[in-house]
């Protein structure tokens, strides 16, 4: 597993990300429709109220789409379909759930939010790291993970 030839190809990672980026909001919309969380005037009664509901919707959408796969197989939906997975960089073992959720999912978005004036450039910078020799995005470095082909 530590062999660099097992690293996932950039193309697969790209298409896995595209799948996730498309599927997660679609499920989010479905949840929004069923629950009516943003359907009524009450949802817009204050900025805090609206932001809280949008965050809740985003979190629940992510868990519905990816939660079980991340917990059981260290994969998002896109990664599962393209047969790649997230592993700990040093051990090569499937990354722990808390690392996948707390760090991979929330650390970077939080940094984005805190660095609002530069927010647009951070995701680009994050993804640009994939072109490095170890094919690890910035969030991989932050979480000590890498993405490999599923054996």
């Amino acid at each position: 597993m530590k062999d660099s030839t097992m690293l996932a190809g950039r193309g697969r990672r790209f298409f896995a990300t595209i799948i996730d980026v498309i599927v997660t909001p679609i499920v989010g919309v479905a949840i929004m429709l069923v629950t009516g969380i943003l359907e009524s005037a009450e949802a817009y009664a204050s900025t805090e109220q609206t932001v809280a509901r949008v965050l809740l919707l985003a979190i629940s959408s992510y868990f519905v789409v990816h939660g079980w796969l991340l917990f059981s197989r260290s994969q998002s939906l896109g990664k599962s379909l393209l047969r790649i997975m997230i592993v700990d960089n040093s051990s090569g073992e499937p990354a722990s759930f808390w690392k996948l959720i707390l760090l991979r999912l929330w650390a970077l978005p939080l940094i984005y939010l805190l660095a609002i004036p530069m927010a647009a450039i951070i995701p680009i910078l994050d993804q640009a790291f994939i072109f490095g020799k170890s094919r690890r995005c910035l969030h991989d470095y932050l979480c000590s993970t890498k993405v490999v082909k599923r054996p």
Partner: protein
Amino acid sequence: MFHIPTPLNALIKTAAWTALSLLATSTSVYANCDNTDIKPGLKQQFSTSWGIEYSGERFQSSAKTSINANNASTLSLKWAYGLSTNRPRSYPLVTEDTIFIGDGGNGLVALDKETGCVRWENTSIKDISTSIVSEQVDGRTVLVFSGRLSGVHAVDASTGDKIWTSAPKVHPVPMFSGSPLAYKDTVFVPISSMEIGLSANPFYGCCTTSGGMAALDIRTGELLWYRPTVEEAGSVVTGTHFLFVEKRGPSGAPVWGSPMLDTKRDLLFYGSGQNYSLPASLTSDAIFAVHIKTGEIAWVEQFTAGDTFNMACTTSVDHPNCPSTMGPDVDFGAPPLLTQMPSGEDILIAGQKSGQVYGINPDNGKTVWSTRFGRGGPLGGVHWGIAANPELGLAFIPISDVPAFPSDLPPAPGLYAVDVKDGSLRWSVEREAACEERSCWAGLSAAITAGPNIVVAGAMDGMLEIYRADDGEKLWSYNTKKEYDAVNALPTKGGTLDAHGAMLAGDLLIVSSGYGSFQQQEGNALLVFGTTEEQAQ
């Protein structure tokens, strides 16, 4: 030579100007009053609300203004102040030495009337969208105004210090876009709703809120009574889309125009807007008369039935939130006015966005006469305010007719004078635009103001004009659409004249130029004019 196409050129200019303005605004350039007493004089106030007087006539008699038909032609610009917004919508309160006005992101400012220097500022309220009104409370002068979303605010006129803020949650998403009116112990506050815009979201279940009128205690801001325009708003489910999103009604009928007050009958008169969703109510596009102590309805009279419209319809008529029977969107935004006929009897006059003008019996709401000018539309017809001159027995009707919805009728933008007793036309002025850009239109959308034998009208093309009231002859005009050297050193330019219109106060004519809404020409110029004789003194 390389030539940038005109629209692109305009876009680049606009972007550069906006960036420059924002940069300058962020560095807070002010002309503070170093050699002037910072305490405003408060012995004399020249207006009470958007309708200037309680009667809503928007008329300043010779006791309130020295500008008249004899000296109007000598008006010239005294000074300009750069506001921190490109869509100013705050009607100033003027005293013997001070102009109080909402200054966009700078909040409320008190400007010296002669020089424009800043006596004080209250920067905590950044969304002022109404006239500044005042009342005497326990020996001090209290200024009251509304922020579009932040609610109603009361501050001490001497210092600008906050007294109270009140955002009555009469429904979840109130909007305070109409000018309040203060009378003795009570502040009357028009209530609109954010649902007009939320409806554009297809996943939003339009709509469940109603417009209305709230009465607040002027000492505390506490809600005394609330009169919704639509009873049981949102109680009917009229359908679903996307399987789950419920459409509801009736809703809307917002009140976004200023009310007017009849102190003889103790009645408050105001107009309502269109319904946001089906089913339409019997109280949209209506004039309300309510008792000022209780909010009980004395009478309500609807003038256009079945008018349902919201912002979803501006994206597509197939939008799931656009009502299937989309109405013409012809609210009453202009405050009704109460004036006297030559017989001595009162008559209530109301102008609608349809271009229809009504003479109404104030005791029962019955129509005495009606007449129509222009073709009307979502931005008028009559948009922000009509005026009357009780000395001449004339009412003055500004017509916008800006293109919005397709219409077979020809536009007729201009100014019309009618006899208050029967609505018959006495004279009219059809305008032609002073410029050719798409955003430049000849229409009169802004509220107009009447004075001693004069009518002051601001046009969407940026022209500020004064007409003789008894025959419509143009006495003076000034193109406000240009750049100015402002006393506070902000990049300052004029544009469309809209919304609250001009103020006549003492020896001054005051107007803000620029209105960057609805694809019109933005600008941030607060302009103060005086007559030659006044400036010679």
